């Protein structure tokens, strides 16, 4: 009895706080947040609601020198949107997306509406986020996204279950603008890692396996920052957990192995 009261009391308080945060008032309608699960237990268990919250804005940036083109970040976004259904608005400053590449992540051009906007990009995104029939809105921004602008986007997204993604790009390596606080629901950083050999049992065979990313959750409402190593999305837009060995050198030198065996056979006193 006591336990039940305590549980419902805590859950009720949490719901009330969430409702206050989203501007719905203290009582009455509170709806559970719709989420898009990643399909990976290690990620979904970590995130509040078991996935990426819909009806919210998430920031994605690339790490290191990739930040200028942000190909891995765009692939991450395309994979997420590829698992939703419905039209997607993709706003960008340049026409450098390659549609066959997006289609290989499950995001087909029939669903895509492209908008070329540079200065008005955030305005366009806000407008698009208010449209109820869209599955997602992606906006690529060069440089700054301040607290006020991101708050506006977040409020616009809360009206319906649309997935808002902001892709941060910058011509500058390690741009301080990318570290400024924003009101996004979560912030992600996608950095490429050296991939594993395509055939684990034959590391000398040339070729490429799936790309491997370091996926960093840098900030998220209701979750701790965390880092995962994942494989790039497949044709259905699903991520996979990368083999643990991915980070190691491809082929350990045989000489070393010999040394190790000898060491094991003749332990030092």
């Amino acid at each position, binding site marked *: 009895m006591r336990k039940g009261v305590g549980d419902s009391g805590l859950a009720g308080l949490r719901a009330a706080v969430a409702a206050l945060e989203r501007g719905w008032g203290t009582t009455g309608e509170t709806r559970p947040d719709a989420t898009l699960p990643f399909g990976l237990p290690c990620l979904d268990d970590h995130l509040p609601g078991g996935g990426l919250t819909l009806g919210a804005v998430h920031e994605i940036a690339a790490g*290191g*020198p*990739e930040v200028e*083109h*942000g*190909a*891995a970040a*765009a*692939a991450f976004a*395309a994979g997420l949107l590829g698992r939703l259904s*419905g*039209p997607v*608005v993709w706003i960008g400053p*340049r*026409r*450098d*997306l*390659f*549609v*066959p*590449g*997006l*289609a*290989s*992540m499950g995001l*087909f*051009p*029939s669903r*895509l*509406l*492209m*908008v*070329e*906007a540079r200065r*008005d990009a955030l*305005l*366009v995104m806000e*407008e*698009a986020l208010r*449209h109820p*029939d*869209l599955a997602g809105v992606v906006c690529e921004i060069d440089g700054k996204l301040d607290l006020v602008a991101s708050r506006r986007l977040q409020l616009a997204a809360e009206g319906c279950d649309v997935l808002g993604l902001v892709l941060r790009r910058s011509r500058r390596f390690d741009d301080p603008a990318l570290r400024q606080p924003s009101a996004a629901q979560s912030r992600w950083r996608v*950095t*490429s*890692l*050296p*991939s594993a*050999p395509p055939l684990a049992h034959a590391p000398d065979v*040339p*070729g*490429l396996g799936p*790309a*491997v990313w370091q996926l960093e959750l840098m900030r998220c409402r209701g979750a701790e920052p965390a880092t995962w190593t994942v494989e790039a999305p497949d044709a259905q837009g699903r991520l996979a957990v990368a083999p643990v060995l991915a980070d190691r050198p*491809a082929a350990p030198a045989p000489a070393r192995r010999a040394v190790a065996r000898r060491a094991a056979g003749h332990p030092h006193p």
Partner: protein
Amino acid sequence: MIAGACAAARKLGLSPGMPLANAQAMVPGLTVVDATPEEDAAALDRLAAWCLRVTPMTAPDPPDGVWLDTTGCAHLHGGEPTMLSALLEQLDEQGYVARAALADTPGTAHAVARFSGASSTVVNPGAQADALAMLPVSALRLDPEHGITLRRLGLDLIGQLVTAPRGPLARRFGPALLRRLDQALGRVPEPIQPVLPPEVIQVRRSFVEPIGTAESIVSVIALLVAEACELLEQRGDGARRLDLLFERVDGTVQAVRIGTARPSRDARHLARLLDERVEEVDPGLGIEAMRLVLPLVEPLALTQHGGGLLPGEQEEADLSVLVDRLTNRLGPGKVYRMQMLPSDVPERAQRPVPMHEPLPPAPPATGWPRPIRLLERPEPVDALALMPDHPPQCFTWRRVRHRITRADGPERITGEWWRRDGELAAVRDYWIVENEAGRRFWLFRQGDGVDPATGSLGWFLHGFF
């Protein structure tokens, strides 16, 4: 070749169709102006539009005529002869030399106007055969060869043709000759196609006091749009383009034009599109009147929403409202869709398509890995590679050196010889390469590495994964 000759030239014996050299030999110092058929056609279109003052059904009849269907219009102009002479007088004032004929059928009117020699003729109802009897057969809009053959057979006049037995004529000349004859005599109907659009919807409000504030303009826009939408609904049309004209006190006019992705008569949506553009208008000393013109409308049938086969099934989401607003804010060409094309050459694999065009289905997927980002034009890189079929060991792009640890390829893409002759031998060998940090690039080498005719063996960066 002479395309046309003025009255003075005709008096000197020149006629259309005569070789120019002959004409210049006959008349030294002849003034010659090059013929411009396109401009003539445009002028004829304008003339047909001008003739709308006589009747709502007019159509240009290239190269030198205008059809007017005056059924039920003559009494408005004081009878048929008066109407014709008034029309000719007005044309004369504009500098046109014209001949007019009025008859029951377009064929007869055409023949009489061109071949009777009189400047204005009214053929009485049912009297086509009499009017045509003494005219040459070429007046029937025949194939020129048929005209020559008929004349050779001794059939010079239409009257002879009417009385000639039909069977042999049809055997000899096919159905075209008799059809023309029957059309002229009224045995077979020949409707004329009015090419001019039906009446353009426009609504106008003038004000007792000039207005100038944004709020007042917005409220007038709401009134105008509501009125226009009512007219659209009566006609079953939707607007594709709207022009809002502001007539200012100083006599100048300012215009704002908006377009929609698909026909719409949603007053709220259209008014909102116009409202967003109000700030571009300079009211000056005040606006006397506002006029909303809908130059482009398309049929818009009432549609029933929902009703998919399955209960929860939805139709394709209607994005036209969003598209219109974005297009009007950003300008044309900024909102588009991407079409995948069946080409292996990356530059030709996609193409932007405007929103109002249907998107053709994508070609079947090839399964080859393709980058997410493609550089607009490939950037040259310095690469170290073993020829002919090894990936580069390292490459330098924008002064940064990337050491390659893994690579996949080559994927050979050959030139599309059916587009340009020069691509017959062209070859690109594409490699996906991964540098030490794990970043993946799409590189290609021009040429197959063996035959210099296939390319310069230079390395280029084309995309990012």
